[in-house]
């Protein structure tokens, strides 16, 4: 059998120096390059980084306490001395409230999507890979969640759990599991019929291994794109729950709750009252545009 190796080296010797294939850029390098060439993606990424940084460094950026105001300084307009964006109905500095509020809003936007992605992908991938009665059981259960409108379901779960950030995250994770499981299942079903899955089976690899090494990488990009699009919506729903009093407990700063508490001052100080809404809008748009750019960057031909 030793003859094999030497005889085939003649084949290798045929590669003249100039014909030796160069190493091409990897998938991630290519995706990074394409993302870097997309101005929309870069701008939205910049906005998101700025929002995240301002939330994290809020104590450094402002000297005021977000939860205590001067009664004398109530309802200052935008541009007043010492309060660049004015004050709210309790005399608290708006810049400070908005910066601190970003913390809770971003957490409420990201964590439910993260949890729902982990759970939904697992359920969807298993359903798509196994098929049969297991898929029917999982997916029909998911379908039951579709019977309720997302916001109503979130309100129902939040109302039964009581107000608070953790309960907001739980209720929103619950409503996102079903759509994510469906996206994961559809993507998995497309992948499992491919011949490379059969090739993996022939090696003797077990189902969990095939799911992780062969399936996951191929369903990642549709799931990632869908999930990142949900973050914007998630911020809006979290704000809605706070607006309804089911979210964070007062006086904690959160954009949705701020929108609610400033509602009464809309005829006195309309611009100040609109500020939390503007930030919700900007954050949500930035996440959606970022998701679109990522999708474009990941979209290699196969």
């Amino acid at each position, binding site marked *: *059998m030793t*003859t*094999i*190796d*030497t*005889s*085939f*080296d*003649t*084949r*290798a*010797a045929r*590669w003249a120096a100039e014909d*030796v*294939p*160069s*190493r*091409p850029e*990897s*998938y991630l390098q290519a995706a990074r390059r394409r993302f870097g060439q997309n101005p929309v993606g870069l701008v939205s990424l910049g906005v998101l980084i700025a929002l995240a940084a301002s939330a994290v460094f809020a104590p450094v950026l402002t000297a005021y306490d977000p939860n205590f105001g001067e009664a004398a300084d109530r309802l200052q307009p935008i541009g007043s001395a010492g309060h660049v964006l004015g004050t709210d109905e309790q005399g608290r500095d708006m810049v400070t409230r908005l910066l601190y509020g970003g913390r809770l809003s971003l957490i409420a936007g990201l964590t439910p999507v993260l949890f729902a992605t982990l759970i939904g992908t697992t359920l969807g991938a298993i359903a798509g890979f196994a098929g049969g009665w297991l898929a029917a059981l999982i997916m029909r259960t998911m379908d039951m969640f579709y019977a309720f409108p997302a916001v109503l379901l979130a309100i129902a779960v939040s109302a039964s759990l009581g107000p608070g950030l953790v309960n907001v995250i739980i209720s929103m994770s619950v409503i996102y599991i079903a759509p994510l499981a469906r996206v994961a299942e559809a993507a998995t079903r497309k992948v499992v019929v*491919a*011949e*490379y899955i*059969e*090739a*993996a*089976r*022939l*090696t*003797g*690899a077990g189902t969990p*291994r095939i799911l992780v*090494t*062969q399936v996951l*990488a*191929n369903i*990642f990009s549709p799931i990632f794109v869908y999930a990142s699009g949900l973050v914007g919506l998630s911020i809006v729903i979290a704000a809605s729950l706070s607006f309804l009093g089911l979210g964070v407990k007062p006086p904690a700063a959160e954009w949705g709750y701020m929108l609610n508490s400033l509602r009464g001052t809309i005829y006195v100080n309309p611009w100040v009252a609109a500020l939390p809404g503007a930030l919700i809008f900007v954050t949500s748009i930035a996440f959606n545009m970022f998701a679109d750019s990522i999708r474009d960057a990941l979209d*290699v*031909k*196969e």
Partner: protein
Amino acid sequence: MPSTTTTPPARPTPRTPRSDGASPQTPLLEVRGVSKRFPVRLGLLEKGYVSAVDTLSFAVERGTTMGIVGESGCGKSTAARLILGLIAIDEGDVLFEGRNVVAARRMLQLRPDQKALRRNMQMVFQDPHSSLNPRASIGEIIAFPMKVHGFSKEQQRDRTDQLLRQVGLHPNHASYYPHQMSGGQRQRVNIARALALSPKLVVCDEAVSALDKSVQAQVLNLLKDLQEELDLTYIFISHDLNVVEYVSDDVCVMYLGQAVEICAADALYANPLHPYSQALLASIPRLLDDEPMREAQPLEGEVPSPLNPPSGCRFRTRCPFVMDVCAEERPSLSEPEPGHFVACHLYASPSGAPATMRPLMQPVGV
């Protein structure tokens, strides 16, 4: 010997010597009466069965190539997947080196010793696009079977380099992604992956059908070279009669899930016995005038539905020589010429006793 020789890594899985219990007479692979029916839903409650493969039997000798031909939908690919255990077998046995490798239960669960045997059977797939994981590099794709079997990182890398060279690629191709390669190159990767665990049997399912003619020739020659170098046994599935003639020692002609003729490739192309084989061969366009004229009636009609196959001989609805007995009785394989098996009432043995399927032992002209 070239000067560029680097010390080749030791073969990670040394081939077990032939004295591993199987006598030299045992064919490498024996397929015995393998059948598969797929359930299909016809209406709300009505269920039907598609008979994809029906009592298929043949044997493949070490180092030879068994070609399986037939038109689309005749069960060639299903047969391959049944043999390899990718689909559960309804009935019948698959013997590899004389040992049964059919999973005991329907969930494709194998005993450990069967698993060890299974790794000797690999497959080269049809579609160069869907057979390679688009998110994995060529190196990862080829190394995956070795990873599953617990080879060290270094062994994986060395063997990948060696395999890439063996299939006519460069070790640098390991960092390519499938979409960066041509169809022919992908098929070479496909072959390299199939060879990664040093299998004894490689099933090529329409392995060159998706390639254009010039690339087909390259890949076919590569397969032939590898067979010679590595003492491989092939099952070569194709609808292309010329390709099958080129690579095969023995040929099995399938029609609607059944083997209708099994014989040496030379014998089939010189003297096809079954009316279906005759019609198939007559359909090959002739290039040269001095080739013998093949005479056969052109086939009429469509292949009947496998959902409700004709009684008796499945070919009778299109056979120019159809007789009364064809509708009543399924023809069994008879052996009108030594080593030449055919399932047709025209050649029924006078004694009425069906010829049993034996390993095809006659000398083969390569």
